[in-house]
């Protein structure tokens, strides 16, 4: 259980960067007024952000990941959250085992 100084500095730098981004939005809304139109636009930020994070996995990584993403998305329309995630993980494991 050793802790080295360079690693701790790197972790602290990561923590500082993360805190900056998480508090940043609070500062932003203080200086930008929110009309109903802007508020509606802000409501689209959540899906846009999440989509940007998963897009490379969904469309570039490989057929196993693309298919599993589709399965997860379709499952999420009807099934509970956790079931959808398990289906997606099971799907990717099966496809990878099959050589995709």
């Amino acid at each position, binding site marked *: *259980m*050793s*802790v*080295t100084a*360079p*690693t701790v*500095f*790197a*972790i*602290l*730098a*990561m923590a500082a*960067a*993360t805190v900056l*981004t*998480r508090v*940043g*939005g*609070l500062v*932003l*809304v203080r200086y930008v007024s929110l009309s109903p139109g802007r508020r*509606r*636009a*802000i*409501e*689209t*930020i*959540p*899906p*846009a*952000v*999440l*989509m*940007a*994070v*998963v*897009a*490379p*996995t*969904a469309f*570039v990584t490989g057929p196993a990941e693309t298919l*599993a*993403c589709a399965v*997860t*998305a379709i499952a*999420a*329309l009807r099934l*509970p*959250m*956790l079931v*959808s*995630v398990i289906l*997606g*993980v*099971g*799907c*990717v*494991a*099966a496809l*990878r085992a099959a050589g995709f």
Partner: protein
Amino acid sequence: MNTHSIRQEFLGGALAIAPLIAAVLPIGLVFGALAVTKGLSPAEATLMSALVFAGGSQFVAMDIWTHPAAWMGVGFATLLVNIRHVLMSASLATGMQAFTPRQKLFAMLFLADEIWAMAEFRVRAAQLTPAWFAGLAVPFYLAWVASALAGASLGALLGDPVLLGLDFAFPAVFIVLIMGFWKGRRTGAVLIASGTAAVVTQHVLPGVWYIAAGAVCGLIVALVLDRQETSGVAP
């Protein structure tokens, strides 16, 4: 608010986040195991999960980890991966009327994607209270830190996480969250813009600019669609 309703609210949040905790445990385990293969000690891996508490950036940091660790490179990559949190906290802040300024600030420190998404769902359905938010954040935070410690300590026993598909739990959770925000064709257009921009940017620029690019393009499409709607042009 009396103690009873505070407890009710906390429990409500904890119940809402429960399935996401089950989904994040394997992700935390994989992170811990991966960190050890990159030369971090179990204590360091756990410290990172406890202080950074942002899964995406932690995986990216493991991707570019060097020995000795380069704090500037890792710090900048974290800033880029997490720049989306600026938009997320700005968005959530508009629904936090029940919070004092200090509570708001403290709550934002725990703005992991899953907590934030569940908080946004709550804002749309009822008033988000500090107790509900704590119900989301406390168990999820503890699960994230504990799973990193377990993964780092037991790493070798886990087998190959890629073969088990466990690495896919992270994108799978994100996809389920995206579907929760679905509101018809407008959402579809935003998703197509964001996804396309992210894929293209990832292809032409190194690093993790694609996340910021996708988010901004999705937002631009939403603004353009709204402008067309208000000026009477058919969407």
